[in-house]
């Protein structure tokens, strides 16, 4: 078990993480999955959630949404639409986004299904951001 994982996390605008890790937990579209060295080749779409990666005893968290995750030969590559570390999250903005989404969801009836799905997704993203923002403080 000498092997470790290589983790790369990129968004369309930048490379966010390029590190080695002992364990990575990723929010797949069908639920969170953990990756340890020796994992089978795996490809999934990414849900909205928190990525956790552990190097030794240090745990790091990132809020991500949308994209893909690939596991192959002890390499975890994540292409996310957005990815933010706790210190990068604008809590005020996330808070406002959450309120907006909640307002839309509670006041619905006239809205179309598309808007409902959108608001739900926005709410999920805001919640995850707020959750991640409290990590490591």
């Amino acid at each position, binding site marked *: 078990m000498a092997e470790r994982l290589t983790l*790369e996390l*990129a*968004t*369309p*605008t*930048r*490379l966010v993480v390029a590190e080695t890790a002992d364990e990575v937990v990723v929010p*797949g*579209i*069908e639920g969170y999955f953990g990756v340890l060295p020796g994992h*089978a*080749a*795996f*490809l*999934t*779409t990414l849900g909205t959630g928190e990525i956790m990666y552990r190097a030794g005893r240090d745990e790091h968290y990132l809020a991500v949404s949308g*994209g*893909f995750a*690939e596991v*192959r030969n002890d390499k975890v*590559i994540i*292409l996310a*639409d957005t990815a933010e570390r706790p210190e990068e999250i604008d809590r005020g903005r996330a808070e406002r986004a959450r309120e907006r989404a909640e307002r839309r969801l509670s006041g619905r009836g006239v809205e179309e299904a598309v808007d409902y799905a959108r608001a739900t997704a926005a709410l999920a993203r805001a919640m995850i951001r707020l959750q991640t923002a409290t990590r490591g403080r």
Partner: protein
Amino acid sequence: MATLRDIRRRIRSVESTQKITRAMKLVAAAKLRRAQERILAARPYAGKMAELLGNLVSSAGAHDEAPHPLLVQRAGPRRQVVIITADRGLAGAFNSNIVRRARDFIRQSSAPDVTLVVVGRKGRDFFRRRGFTIKRDMLGFWDRLAYGHAVEIADFLMRQYLDAEVDEVHLIYNEFRSVAVQRPVLEQLLPIPRAEAGEGRATTVDYLYEPSPEAILGDLLPRHVRTQVFRALMESLAGEYGARMTAMEAATKNAKEMIEVLTIQYNKARQEKITKELLDIVGGAEALKQGAEA
């Protein structure tokens, strides 16, 4: 014959022009650096995306009875051209190269129905004046170019394509080769060219897929298109600054040469004037002397 004062005025005017061109050059150089960094920063994502796409198309696209709509080649004649120019000029042939390339392409394509999507004020103005059908334009965002802009354009293009309003979408933009070299390039955006999608590549990885390969591909293709558009926008932006920097550098140099020529002219004229004055004085003194002798 220009008087001394005229020449001095011209020198001053050229000097102030030079100040402006030099400042513009410095600004363009600073912005160029940032634009280049952004292109580099975006590479890991785009590179990995292309690799994934190749893997998926060769494994998911293998059972080819129902390929993804964004990959399907249609026979229809309706073409759309996305033309990316800058909002501003003073960048050498940056904009006119694109405009020329686009006109050539439109003229050559036998498609009777060509619609445009123009990004950047220069291109918009040109094609609007000439009465082309502009489906959509996007201006005034270059200073704060973000991925969201690419998403907006790309999603608009894909929506039209999937609604079968157009059969082909092409992209014309300036590729950033180096600070001094930008080259207009033409790429087919939709349907996604099969070669680009890595069709027939041998290296297939046996993945576990979640959900199905087809579903992942369906998620990946739109992102691929957005990434393509984003890259084109970033290349164009870096190219614009490169072109402006080069143009302003040349302008500053020309101004310097002009000032030199004018300064020589000025000195000559001044010398001539002094000589003439001297001659007048000597002539006058001579006349006085002669008058006294008489």
